[in-house]
């Protein structure tokens, strides 16, 4: 039987590092993914992902299973990313990694890379909170209420942030593509 994340977290609170190891294994891809999409650089993303897990370990004694574990982790990662972006700007856009999941032709690779760079630049033009809302909505597929919980805000505020982010993204993409 698979042990639930919430149960593992309670074990971590009692000092069980084996349970923590299991949580890191289960969620490393998801935490890394958010940090990478938000920050755009692998070194920064790894730092934030690592810090997120260490924050999780530190917060374990205060964790109450009333909140879903995933939401709890979303909140830690999004807060770290936003704080990081506020302290440090701009984010690199040249070092985007090559895609390795398929074997497109060199011309296709170029098109894909150009498209990723355009999106990256447009995302970087957003405020850190707007960027996080876009990532959680479009790439993580969260609902407004889940985004609100992850970012410690209201559903209405998420709707407003997303509306403004969409307007800015559209005008940025238009400008970049001209």
């Amino acid at each position: 039987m698979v042990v639930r994340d919430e149960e593992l977290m309670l074990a971590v609170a009692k000092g069980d590092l084996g349970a923590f190891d299991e949580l890191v294994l289960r969620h490393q891809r998801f935490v890394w993914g958010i940090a990478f999409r938000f920050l755009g650089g692998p070194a920064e993303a790894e730092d934030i992902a690592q810090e997120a897990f260490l924050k999780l370990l530190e917060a374990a004694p205060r964790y109450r299973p009333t909140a879903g574990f995933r939401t709890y982790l979303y909140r830690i990662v999004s807060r770290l990313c936003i704080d990081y972006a506020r302290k440090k700007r701009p984010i690199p856009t040249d070092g985007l990694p090559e895609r390795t999941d398929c074997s497109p032709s060199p011309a296709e690779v170029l098109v894909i890379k150009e498209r990723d760079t355009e999106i990256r630049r447009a995302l970087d033009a957003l405020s850190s909170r707007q960027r996080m809302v876009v990532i959680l909505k479009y790439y993580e597929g969260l609902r407004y209420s889940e985004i609100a919980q992850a970012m410690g805000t209201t559903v209405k505020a998420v709707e407003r942030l997303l509306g403004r982010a969409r307007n800015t993204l559209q005008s940025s993409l238009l400008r970049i593509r001209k």
Partner: protein
Amino acid sequence: MRCRKIISYLNAYVDGELPERQRPIVEAHLAKCAVCLKRLEDIRSLEGSLNDTLHVPSVPDGFVTRVMREARRIERPEATMARPFPPMGWNPLRWITELSAPMRIAACVTMLLACIVGLTMDGGLILDKQGQVSRSAKNLHGLEWFEPTPSGSIGSIYIAMAAQTNEEGNGQ
């Protein structure tokens, strides 16, 4: 309903977050307003632009190991932090208590053998049968480097001191 109000609903409408009772109002307006319909299409096309972009590479190798190493350091700092000074009650022979039983026996036997060899040789490695410093010992100590030495040189003083030490040793 005015366009401005409808536009404020469009994001929630596209995302399926608009309450059921408001959806028909928005749809009725969109059916007759080209401006709001264009705005809706823009929002939808943005979703198309973002889809299949910003691909995430694999998690870096050794990520979990690095996280766990830091976690252990935080949870048990005394196990990984180097101590600048010996702690109170420091025991220089503690290392022997940390060895396994066969290794402890081997260490004791080695030390015992070293003591026996040292005692039984009694200077035999250095002095020959006449009690003089043997040629091999001279070689061993590098004394041959000073022979022949000019009088008054550091080498001659060194040889004189070595000879004096030998005589004292023989006299005892």
